[in-house]
């Protein structure tokens, strides 16, 4: 299982990388390589050229933003995010999700930008970014664009990235006040692809009613799936056990059209969506209540 030959470029700057990608449209970017290299070893992928982004220091690192949000360089390793105090403070959902991604040896190479650009429907980070309403910064040799994560994912392993364009940064807004987040996933073994996963962000109004619910499921279709029905079912209501059960029912019954594979049938995925959405919302609601000093209902 050895990869096919390829031409290797290793630019030291983002500009040089973008020029190379513009010049060689057959070239693919190489970030952490934890999804691309297995596919190359299986020879299911055989890019003619690779542009290695690992020497571009400017693309890595997590920095706080004035608005209380968080800016992540696309080449920031999963292991860095996992240990970052800044991420733990400003994006607890992201911090909670990192240990679910594969294993430490993969997380020491895998990058947040690589995971988002790869857009595997069973990957955790796309769903988290949509739940957190992240803004993605895309750059090509000619221009820079910014777009909400929701628009970035356009289908099975498909994103808005144009040829010669790179995802360079991810900007997370500060969490709204009185917000609570939770991530739930069921995988056959710790670190495996999730059979179903749920990223939930719940914010309450001053009277403890649901102001906004962002519920995003993974591994239930072509990409991160926003459970609009479930969110609507909670809008304006106190997130009681009953309301949450109703929302979870929506998520499972109407918001998704899950695929089948050897590990889980569509029917089983719907059941998992129902249970995991409920469990995530219960935890998110609890955290939202404590964040807004409301006693447990």
């Amino acid at each position, binding site marked *: *299982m050895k990869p096919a030959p390829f031409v290797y470029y290793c630019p030291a700057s983002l500009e040089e990388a973008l020029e190379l990608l513009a010049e060689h449209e057959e070239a693919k970017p190489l970030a952490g390589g934890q999804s691309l290299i297995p596919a190359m070893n299986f020879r299911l992928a055989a890019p003619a050229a690779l542009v290695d982004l690992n020497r571009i220091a400017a693309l890595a690192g997590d920095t706080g933003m004035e608005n209380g949000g968080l800016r992540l360089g696309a080449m920031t390793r999963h292991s860095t995010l996992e240990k970052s105090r800044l991420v733990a403070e400003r994006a607890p959902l992201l911090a909670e999700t990192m240990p679910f991604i594969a294993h430490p040896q993969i997380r020491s190479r895998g990058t947040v930008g690589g995971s988002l650009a790869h857009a595997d429907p069973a990957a955790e980070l796309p769903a988290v970014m949509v739940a957190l309403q992240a803004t993605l910064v895309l750059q090509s040799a000619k221009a820079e664009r910014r777009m909400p994560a929701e628009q970035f994912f356009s289908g099975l392993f498909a994103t808005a990235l144009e040829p010669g364009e790179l995802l360079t940064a991810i900007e997370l807004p500060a969490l709204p006040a009185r917000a609570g987040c939770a991530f739930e996933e069921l995988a056959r*073994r710790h670190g495996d692809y999730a059979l179903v996963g749920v990223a939930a962000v719940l914010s309450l109004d001053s009277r403890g009613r649901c102001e906004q619910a962002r519920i995003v499921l993974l591994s239930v279709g072509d990409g991160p799936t926003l459970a609009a029905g479930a969110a609507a079912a909670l809008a304006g209501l106190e997130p009681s056990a009953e309301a949450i059960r109703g929302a979870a029912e929506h998520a499972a019954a109407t918001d998704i059209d899950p695929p089948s594979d*050897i590990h889980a049938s569509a029917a089983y995925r719907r059941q998992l969506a129902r249970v*995991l959405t409920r469990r995530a919302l219960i935890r998110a609601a609890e955290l939202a209540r404590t964040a807004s000093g409301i006693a447990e209902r």
Partner: protein
Amino acid sequence: MAGRYVGERVLRLEDARLLTGRALFVDDLQLPGLLHVAFLRSDEAHARITRIDATAARSRPGVLAAYTATDLGDYWRPGPLLVPPPPIAGLVFHTATQVPLARDKVRHVGEPLAMVVAESRYLAEDALEDIVVELDPLPAVTDLEAALLEPASLVHEQFGSNLAAHVQQRKGDYAAARAAAHRVIARRFHYDRGAAAAIENRGVVAQWDARVEELTVWDTTQAPIPIRNGLAALLGLRESQVRVIAPFIGGGFGPKIMMYYPEEVLVPWAAMRLGRPVKWIEDRRENFYATTQERAQIHDAELAVSIDGKILGVRDKFLHDTGAYDPYGLTVPINTQCTLLGPYVVPHYDSEFTAVFTNKPIVTPVRGAGRQHGVFVMERLLDFAARELGIDRVEIRRRNYIQPDAFPYDHEILFQDFRPLVYDSGNYPAALEKAVELIGYDGFVKQEQPRLRREGRHVGLGIVSYIEGTGIGPYEGARVTVEPSGSVRLATGVGTQGQGHFTTFAQIVAEVLGVEVGCVQVSTGDTREFTWGTGTFASRGAVVAGSACHAAALKVREKILGLAAPLLGVPPAELVLEAGSVHVRDAPEQGMRLGELARKANPLRGAVTPGTEPGLEATAYFGPDRGNAASGVHAMLVEVDAETAAVRIKRYVVVHDCGTIINPMVVEAQVQGGVAHGIGNAFFEQLSFDENGQLMNASFMDYLLPTALDVPSVEMAHIETPSPLNPLGTKGVGEAGAIPTGAAFAQAIEDALAGSGVEITEIPLSPNRLFELLEAARGAP
């Protein structure tokens, strides 16, 4: 006797080389001019080869050769039948063995079509893409029942059907027993197994030295000696011209005993033709097709019981998937047939099986080797009988055990070693009581489970017993030599795959010769070091090779006493061997270092009494009259999340009886590792073939080996009922942990979901499958 070693927790002598990465595995070999191999394998499960052309591959820079079947000339031939069918009346057996490179037809996905030899594995894989292959697909034979009843095609046309074998063994008169029964429990069971998936894939390196006309082959085999004999015959060489070395092996678990794999036949042939050393290392995807595996059986079984739960008789008809070829004979289904009887008195038994050819990779033994299937059928039937008769599941087992005073116990049918299935010794009730105590059966059933159920939690207990036929012949040998340095050299023919043989064999010899265990230097798996023997499989290493080491050490001991007596002026009976020397009992100063005696035993001058042999060396062989029967009980506690159908193992208990224990640390680790393998097979692993014979999960991403979070630490207890069949009294343990795990899982999960109507008659299970069973039981649409 100083320094008792047998029975002690001696730390392993082979660890340092493994821990530091110095230990040599086959792929670690670096030889000047080494060439590398890649195989083009069939994507089709069943197809005629209409065209294959490797010309383009040969012209690629860095490629030295590209062979197809036609290039092999008369070297191309089907492999030998390794294990002939046992001599059972009325037995039908169709021999169809694998070929080095497919010619005319491919019969399973991954069957080799062409072999490329190049300067690097990277270049060899590039060249595979130059080879032109046209396959005309045929309907794939994959469903066992359809393969016999209305076959869409025949795997081997010459037999006129897909029947590979039909065997029936009977004891007593089942029909009479059935007529007299209070209740007959009948079910259909489906038991599937999986890949051995050792972390080291297979590999072969061969080097032909034209000057001395000698072939050296390094092979990840569990049986280097038969490989040497077979290769010598195939290549027209004398056995003395061929040396096969099984260096350190990264786990065997069965398939590395299978021979002669196409790669084992072709790599030495290519090395001789090209005059350069050649290396082939199997990659993980290849391992799922090119290495043998174990798969499903479908059982229609009946248990006839009396009103008080006594077994009157068992009838079992099953289909066995043998894959595209059957070079390994009927070892697996015969093991199933025999092991089903378990530790129980079964007065009347009628067992009939049909082995079926399918368009899937070859089936040969994987840790447990068919015993799992048999134990599952019997233990499940007993569970259903207990429920229908209102008898406690422990009690129904207790009532049917063969009692400790009933040995040797003859089941009156033939075992895989062609010898009658006779259990040598055992104490089954003792193991059951110990397991009941360790798992806390009574307290759990009476207090804890009811309490948990009231809290809405689904916790269940499974407790099952099993027999494992171990230590079968034919034989093994060993040579012990005391060298002038005082160190002891031990050579034996079996290969080792991590079972600790370097230490356990050294313990046996060190104890007999009264030397430090550390100064016994063990060599295994090198046909130049020891030229006679069979191999490591069927949990026989410690029993058969261990006994040979013991016999050889005793012979050397006699020589030492015989030589030292006149030198020390005392009769041999007054001498003892202790701390590396031989001396008068209770007078250590009146003695001599063994090394010095060894030097004296090989004089340069003077004369020796006629007939005395030089040196302190002896060779001995051991061949048991028949296999012996290890046994035990597994008990486990599981919790099922009824919403997600996820299952968590809370506790796992094993009470095991493998006779005299040479090294408890090694035995316990074998049981713990076996249980992990059993948990994998029962709940995580499954070779998912589709109806066209395509394997849908040929990678470790979707073929799920259990990890450290999936396997609990097993709580263990030992019962030592020595075996009368060898001087050490030992029995095998290598496969015990993996055998009854499926049966324990089924009972425990069914117990956890009691009241849901779920009845489990299949393995493996998974959350997805449990969800389907729960939905079906609820009568969901």
